[in-house]
C-alpha cells in the first residue's frame, strides 16, 4: 500500500461497466494530472466492439493512467490504485494490482446480481471472503452516495446512477490532491444543453471529493510533484488525434488540400471522425462504400493534385493491396495509414498488435516495394504522419504509416510543435508546360521522383495506368528489358527515400554495449524503460528504435555490425526480426508477445536476462 506521502510514479486504473463512463473518467484524470504538470501515459482498455451485457466480464471497460514527476514512457505494468465499480471490474483487474495496492470498491456493485453476472459464486464475494487481505480495500457505497447527492435535481434513477463515475473521480482527485476545476469546466461544456446534468455531475464530483476528505477513509493524501518538463505549451494527445493534426499540418505546409478516402474500422475510425470536423482546413473526407473505393478515391484525388490519404486497419488494408499496387505503378503520392489491431482475420478488433509489418512490406502481387514508417508514441504520430505526406509528395510514392491500437488510443502530454518547427514540403507536381515540349510523364528527377501533370494542366495531356510502363514515356510496354529496368527503378526510388531521412542513433548505450535491442513503432516506451532498468541494474544494453523501416536508415548496417547479440522486440510472432536476420545475417533473438497487449517491462527484461545466463 501507499505509505509515503510523496511518490514519483503512480498508476491508477479505473474500471467499471462499459456503461459507467470509465473512458471519460480516465481521460479527465489524465488531463488534470497533465495540466498539473505530471508526465502521463494512459492505456484505455475497452471491451470488444459490442456493449456486452451490464455487469459481465466482457462488459468491463478500463482506463489506466500512469502519472509521474519524471519522464515516463509506459502505462505501467501494475496499478497502485484500482477503482472497481462492480465485481466484474475487480475480477478482471485484480491480477495487475501491486501487492498491498489500494482498491476503491463500489460496494453496490457487489450485490448478488453483480456477483452472478461476474460469474462469482454467491458465497465468494471478494469483499468478504478475505481474498483481498493482501490489499488495502476501501469499500464505498458509491451508487447510493451518488444518488443521494444528486437527488435534488430530480433525475431519473438511471441518469442519477450515471453520475457515479464523477463521484469516484472526485474521491481520487482528493487522494492525489488534484484540482477539480478542469473537470468542472469539462462537464459544463459537455452538458451545455442541460443545466440539470451539469449541476448533477458537478455535485457528484464535489461530493466524492468531500467524501474522501471528510470520511477519513484515507489516512492521507499523496503527492506527486510536477515533472521537470521542457518549457513550452503542452496538451494531452492520443495517437489518432496526432495523426489527424499531422496530416493537416502537412497539408498546410504543402499548400495542398487533404483528401481522405476511408471506410470505418476499429481502431482507425477516429482519424476519419477527427478529420471530418476539420473542413475549414479544406480537408475533404469521403466515407466510401468499402476500403477499395476509399483508397481508389484517394488515388483519384492524388491524381488531381491533392494529398490522397486512406486509413484503415488489418482486414481493410488487405482489401486495399491491389490498389496500392496501382498507386505504385502510377507513381502518385498516397499515404496509407494502418492502425494495426490483433489478427488474423477479424481477430481482436479492439486489441493492439504489430503483426501487419510483413503485409506492409510484402503484401502485394509482383515486385511492389512500399515505403513503410512507424511512429513510436502517441505524440510522435504527429511528426510521423507529417513525414508520411512529405515522403509521398516529394518521392511520388505510396507510403504505409503503421500505427496501432495502443498508440491510437493512448494519451500523452505533448510539447506542441507548431508549423514553423516542421520542415518544408516540396510536392513534385508540374504545373506549367514551360518549353511547350511533349510532356514525358515518367521522366524523373535526381531522386527518381516523377513530375506529375495534373488533369486540367494545358498542353500536358497524357495517359497512365497499371500495365507496365515504358521508361520515361510512360507508354504501355511489354518489353522484357524495360520491365526489369522499371522494377529496379521502382526499387531504387524507395531506397532513395533514405537519403532524406535522419541517421539512426542509439536511444541508449552505444557500439560498445554488450548487446543491442531493436524495436519499432509503438513498443518504444516499454523497450526504453526496460533497458533503462536493466542498465541501472548493471547491464550494458544498447537500444535502437526504428521509425523508418523501409528503407532502413542509411547507417543501419554499420550500426548493427559491432553486435554479436541482437534482440528484436515486437508485439507479433517475429516480423521485423526476419528483415534484420535476412539483411544482416545476424542470429537475432526475438522477444515477442502476441496477446493483444503492450509489453510489460518484466517480460522484456526477463527474456534478455535469460540470454545472459
Amino acid at each position: 500500500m501507499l505509505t509515503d506521502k510523496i511518490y514519483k510514479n503512480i498508476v491508477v486504473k479505473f474500471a467499471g461497466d462499459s456503461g459507467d463512463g470509465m473512458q471519460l473518467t480516465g481521460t479527465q484524470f489524465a488531463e488534470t494530472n497533465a495540466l498539473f504538470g505530471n508526465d502521463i501515459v494512459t492505456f484505455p482498455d475497452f471491451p470488444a466492439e459490442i456493449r456486452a451485457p451490464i455487469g459481465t466480464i466482457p462488459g468491463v471497460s478500463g482506463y489506466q493512467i500512469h502519472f509521474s514527476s519524471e519522464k515516463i514512457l509506459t502505462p505501467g505494468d501494475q496499478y497502485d490504485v484500482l477503482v472497481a465499480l462492480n465485481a466484474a471490474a475487480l475480477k478482471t483487474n485484480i491480477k495487475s494490482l501491486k501487492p498491498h495496492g489500494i482498491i476503491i470498491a463500489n460496494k453496490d456493485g457487489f450485490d448478488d446480481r453483480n456477483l452472478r453476472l461476474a460469474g462469482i459464486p454467491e458465497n465468494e464475494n471478494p469483499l468478504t471472503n478475505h481474498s483481498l487481505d493482501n490489499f488495502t480495500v476501501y469499500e464505498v457505497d458509491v451508487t447510493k452516495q451518488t444518488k443521494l447527492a444528486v437527488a435534488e435535481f430530480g433525475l431519473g434513477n438511471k441518469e442519477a446512477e450515471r453520475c457515479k463515475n464523477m463521484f469516484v473521480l472526485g474521491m481520487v482527485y482528493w487522494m492525489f490532491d488534484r484540482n477539480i476545476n478542469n473537470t468542472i469546466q469539462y462537464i459544463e461544456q459537455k452538458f451545455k444543453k442541460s443545466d440539470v446534468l451539469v449541476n448533477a455531475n458537478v455535485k457528484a464530483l464535489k461530493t466524492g471529493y468531500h467524501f474522501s476528505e471528510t470520511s477519513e477513509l484515507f489516512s492521507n493524501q499523496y503527492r506527486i510533484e510536477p515533472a521537470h518538463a521542457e518549457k513550452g505549451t503542452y496538451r494531452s494527445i492520443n495517437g489518432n488525434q496526432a495523426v489527424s493534426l499531422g496530416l493537416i499540418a502537412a497539408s498546410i505546409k504543402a499548400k495542398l488540400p487533404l483528401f481522405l478516402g476511408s471506410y470505418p474500422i476499429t481502431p482507425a475510425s477516429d482519424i476519419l471522425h477527427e478529420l471530418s470536423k476539420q473542413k475549414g482546413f479544406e480537408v475533404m473526407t469521403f466515407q466510401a462504400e468499402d476500403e477499395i473505393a476509399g483508397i481508389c478515391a484517394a488515388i483519384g484525388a492524388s491524381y488531381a493534385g491533392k494529398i490522397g490519404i486512406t486509413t484503415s486497419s488489418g482486414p481493410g488494408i488487405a482489401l486495399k493491396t491491389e490498389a496500392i499496387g496501382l498507386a505504385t505503378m502510377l507513381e502518385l503520392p498516397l499515404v496509407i495509414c494502418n492502425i494495426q489491431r490483433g489478427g488474423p482475420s477479424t481477430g481482436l478488433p479492439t486489441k493492439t498488435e504489430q503483426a501487419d509489418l510483413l503485409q506492409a512490406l510484402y503484401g502485394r502481387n509482383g515486385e511492389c516495394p512500399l515505403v513503410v514508417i512507424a511512429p513510436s508514441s502517441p505524440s510522435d504520430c504527429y511528426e510521423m504522419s507529417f513525414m508520411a505526406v512529405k515522403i509521398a509528395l516529394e518521392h511520388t510514392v505510396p507510403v504505409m504509416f503503421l500505427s496501432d491500437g495502443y498508440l491510437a488510443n493512448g494519451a500523452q502530454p505533448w510539447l506542441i510543435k507548431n508549423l514553423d518547427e516542421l520542415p518544408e514540403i516540396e510536392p513534385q507536381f508540374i504545373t506549367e508546360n514551360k518549353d511547350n515540349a511533349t510532356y514525358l510523364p515518367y521522366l524523373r528527377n535526381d531522386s527518381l521522383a516523377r513530375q506529375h501533370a495534373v488533369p486540367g494542366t494545358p498542353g500536358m495531356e497524357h495517359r497512365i495506368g497499371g500495365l507496365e510502363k515504358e521508361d520515361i514515356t510512360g507508354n504501355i510496354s511489354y518489353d522484357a528489358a524495360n520491365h526489369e529496368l522499371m522494377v529496379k527503378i521502382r526499387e531504387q526510388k524507395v531506397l532513395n527515400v533514405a537519403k532524406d531521412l535522419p541517421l539512426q542513433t542509439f536511444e541508449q548505450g552505444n557500439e560498445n554495449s554488450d548487446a543491442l535491442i531493436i524495436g519499432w513503432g509503438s513498443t518504444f516506451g516499454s523497450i526504453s524503460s526496460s533497458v533503462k532498468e536493466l542498465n541501472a541494474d548493471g547491464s550494458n544494453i544498447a537500444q535502437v528504435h526504428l521509425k523508418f523501416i523501409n528503407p532502413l536508415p542509411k547507417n543501419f548496417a554499420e550500426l548493427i555490425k559491432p553486435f554479436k547479440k541482437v534482440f528484436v522486440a515486437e508485439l507479433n510472432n517475429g516480423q521485423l526480426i526476419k528483415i534484420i536476420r535476412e539483411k544482416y545475417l545476424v542470429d537475432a533473438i526475438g522477444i515477442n508477445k502476441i496477446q493483444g497487449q503492450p509489453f510489460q517491462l518484466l517480460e522484456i527484461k526477463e527474456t534478455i536476462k535469460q540470454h545472459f545466463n
Partner: protein
Amino acid sequence: METEILSPIFTSKDLETDQEVRWCPGCGDYAILNSVKKILPDFGLPKHQFVFVSGIGCSSRFPYYMDTYGMHSIHGRATSIATGLKIANPELSVWVITGDGDALSIGGNHFIHTLRRNPNLNILLFNNQIYGLTKGQFSPTSLHGQVTKSSPLGVVDSPFNPLALALGAGSTFVARTLDRDAKHQQEIYKRAYYHPGTSLVEIYQNCNVFNDGAFEVFTDKATKSETTIFVEHGKPLIFDNGNKGILLDGLNAKVVNTEDVPANDLWIHDENDLNKALLLSRFFDDENMPRPFGVIYVDAKKPVFETIFNQQIAERKIEDKETAFAKLLKSNNSWVVG
C-alpha cells in the same frame, strides 16, 4: 461546364494519340471511340479539361486512344477513382469508360454507390454481354443459357437489366444507345455531358470475336424496326417505321397499331417521370416489347455530390490556416510549462 456549345477550341483530329488502336478489326469499340471524338470539341472546353478514367477490359483501353488526360486503372474501380478525382477538381469533365464486366461484375458495388451519390460523371458502359479481354467468359449481362468458355452447358445465372439496376440504385440519368448508330450515340453523349449528376449510358457494343451478333436483332435491317424503339421526350412511343405504338393501359404497356390509336393517346415519353422510366426499363424482360433506346430517365433535382461536398468545405474555409491551426493544436486544454 454546363454552358452552351461554344466554337470548338480543338478538333476531333487533335484527339488522336500516338498509340496504335489495339482492338480486333470489326470491334464495336471503334465506332464508340469515333463518336466520342466527334462530339468532344462541341462542348467548348479545352481538351486538357477532359479526363477519361477506365477500368480493365477491351473497352477500358479507350483512354489510350484519346489525347486528353486519362487513366487506365484497375478492374472495376474506375468509378471510385473518378469520384475522388471529381470531388478533388469539379472543374474537370470526367468520363468513366467501362465494360459489362468491369462495371457490373467486379465493379458492381462502386457502380451502384456512384449512382446513389450522383457526382457529375459520365459513365459509358460498353455492354457486349461477354468478357472480351479475358477471351470469352460470360458476364453479368450474358443471356441465361448462353454458351461461353466458362459455361459450356449454358449460363445458369439470370442477367442484370443494367438500366433497371441503375434506376434501383437511384440513378439520375439513364440512357441506352448502340455502337452502330453514330448519330444517336452523339446525341446521347451530349445529353450525358450536360446532365448535372451521374449520367449512365449503356451502349450495346458488338464483340465480333467472342459474342458476335449479340445485338443483331436490334441492328439488322430485317428486324430492327420491330425490335427497337427510339424514345424522345414529349413524343409518343412509336416504332416500326411509325406503324406501331405503345399504349399504357393502367400499368400495362401494350403494342398497338398506330392506325388504331391517335398519337395523343399513346404513351408519351416523359424523361422526368420515374414511374414511366421504371416501366420502360422493364421492356427488357418482355420479348413482345421493343427495346427502348434514348434517354430513359432524367432527374435534375437530386443534389450533385461534389457540389454539396465542396460546399460544406467552402462555407467553412479558413483563410488564415496557419493561425487557425496553431489554435487547433492547442485545443481547449493546453498548459504552459516554464
